[in-house]
């Protein structure tokens, strides 16, 4: 088995026994990027020189018997909305195309401490707004399984990179499904942690009450290992929960006895692709065969989740993106007559259409005369959605569902109709509104050869249970297949 098809734990084992060096591992992935990323377009920048230098240092320390971090020698790519000191962080926007952060995001610092090797920055929908990675001003990412299909979004570059063997690990961010949906489209594991589990310090803000950073990996244990490395309290994010880092990797191989799997009747309705439904139902049968109890549940307010999400997320975005004024950083127009015109010209030139739509929708929902009817109403229904989950988790440990109503759609298929794209977020969005952890794991392939994901949700701070439940299925189903074999 070649290095770029190995799972995280296989690589760690080989690195620890020094049967392979961090430089060799890093070089293998850089070679794969060199060979294939021209077609896939997963990465916006590749930091080959610093990656090899960092890998050589890990090898030196290991050879000298010095202590190394939990991810020592493992390559990783970060979604390009996560700040990396001295390395461009563009948010796939013209607005930030030359932005070089003067500091590291908390997760970037933690990865350095863990001795992970940063290989580069991954493409996304501009400012993480979108579900296909087509709303990138700086690059086009395609699905490694089929170049005519979308990789999903907004963390499409991160998902495609892991799927294509450009890195064994990646970080994305998930505001309404932006880790789980591309993970399902690309056939990899993607985890959105509980809101507050991972510090958002240095994550470029989109919708602050919903945004959460999380891992991509080829298998569940890789996601567990990466979650453990990035989670834990950080005083620089006052919504980061005052709890120690998770220790999920230690228990992920232990099956849960007496597992109760919830199935929500609202999740199996018109619009759900039959192949996706069949894959989820097969997964439920697997849990049954493992001794789990299947429990019918109801989430009566789930049909309102998309409306609630787009009102809240856009309202927060309109406020968060007010900072792009052409003064402190980012694009500044050259033609304007006064200060306010400078703001307007800079923002109009710097932002793409989807960003403009969300800023305007948010401004509308927050404006005088509409605030109560839209924003405040959405906040109230948000509570009802959370209460549905609180009630459900009295009786179940995890909720199993589709991730997306369909496998990956074709590039260009959704771009003309923003609302149609929004509606496909139905299965993922509620977890953000309720602050729950959720995972997408590979659960099959469509007849046309596209991956299908299974989503599991758990109660807040139950990542350990979530990952163990996910691993139970993965052990039966097999790990994520590679979108192509290495050595090609």
């Amino acid at each position, binding site marked *: 088995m070649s290095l770029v098809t190995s799972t995280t734990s296989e690589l760690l084992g080989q690195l620890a026994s020094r049967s392979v060096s961090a430089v060799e591992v890093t070089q293998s992935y850089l070679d794969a990027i060199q060979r294939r990323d021209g077609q896939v377009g997963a990465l916006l920048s590749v930091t080959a020189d610093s990656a090899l230098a960092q890998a050589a240092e890990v090898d030196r320390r290991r050879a000298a018997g010095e202590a190394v971090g939990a991810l020592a020698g493992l390559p990783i790519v970060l979604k390009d909305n996560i700040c990396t000191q001295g390395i461009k962080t563009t948010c796939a926007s013209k607005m930030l195309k*030359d932005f*070089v952060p*003067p*500091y590291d995001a908390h997760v970037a610092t933690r990865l350095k401490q863990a001795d992970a090797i940063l290989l580069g920055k991954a493409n996304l929908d501009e400012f993480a707004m979108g579900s296909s990675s087509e709303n990138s001003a700086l690059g086009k990412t395609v699905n490694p399984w089929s170049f005519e299909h979308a990789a999903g979004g907004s963390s499409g570059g991160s998902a495609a990179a892991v799927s294509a063997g450009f890195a064994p690990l990646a970080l994305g961010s998930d505001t309404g499904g932006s880790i789980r949906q591309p993970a399902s489209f690309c056939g990899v594991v993607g985890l959105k942690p509980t*809101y*507050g589990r991972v510090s958002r310090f240095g994550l470029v803000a989109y919708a602050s*009450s919903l945004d959460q950073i999380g891992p991509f990996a080829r298998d569940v244990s890789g996601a567990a290992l990466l979650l453990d490395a990035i989670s834990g309290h950080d*005083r620089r994010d*006052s*919504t980061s*929960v005052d709890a120690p880092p998770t220790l999920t990797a230690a228990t992920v191989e232990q099956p849960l006895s007496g597992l109760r799997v919830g199935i929500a009747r609202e999740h199996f309705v018109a619009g759900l692709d039959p192949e996706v439904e069949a894959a989820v139902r097969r997964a439920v049968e697997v849990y049954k065969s493992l001794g789990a109890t299947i429990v019918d549940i109801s989430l009566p*307010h789930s*049909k*309102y989740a*998309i*409306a*609630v999400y*787009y*009102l809240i997320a856009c309202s927060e975005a*309109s406020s968060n993106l*007010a900072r792009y004024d052409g*003064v*402190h950083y*980012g*694009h*500044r127009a050259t033609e*304007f007559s*006064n*200060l306010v015109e*400078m*703001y*307007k*010209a800079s*923002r*109009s030139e710097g932002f793409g259409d989807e960003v*403009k*739509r969300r*800023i*305007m*929708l*948010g*401004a*509308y929902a927050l*404006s005088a005369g509409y605030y109560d009817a*839209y924003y405040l*109403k*959405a*906040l*109230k*229904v*948000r*509570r*009802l959605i*959370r209460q549905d989950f609180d009630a459900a988790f009295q009786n179940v440990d995890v909720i199993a569902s589709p991730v997306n109503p369909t496998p990956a759609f074709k590039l260009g298929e959704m771009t003309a109709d*923003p*609302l149609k794209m*929004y509606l496909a977020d139905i299965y993922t969005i509620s977890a953000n*509104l309720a*602050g729950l952890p959720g995972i997408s794991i590979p659960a099959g392939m469509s007849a046309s050869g596209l991956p299908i994901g299974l989503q599991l949700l758990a109660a*807040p701070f139950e990542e350990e249970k979530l990952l163990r439940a996910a691993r139970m299925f993965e052990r039966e189903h097999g790990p994520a297949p590679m979108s192509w074999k290495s050595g090609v």
Partner: protein
Amino acid sequence: MLTTQDVLKVAELGRLKLDDEEVAKFAGQLGGILDYVAVLDEVDVSNVAPMAHVADVANVFREDVVVASLPRAASLSNAPKTDGKFFLVPQILEHA
């Protein structure tokens, strides 16, 4: 459907400049989204408190002590226009 006036108003609030074609396009798209979110009208929220945040965290305070912050050069390093000490903006006051 939003009116041209509505779109121009929210564009102004968002400090965005739109041409006529964009105004027409966004009027249709934003109108469609607002028609969709009207689904919330059917939910009774009369006894529901708004939930701005999932985490039940109160204000988080820190000790009022001086700590190191970004050096000036780093703070200015991405500025579109700077004299090395300040962020430079167009003149905002006329001379009397």
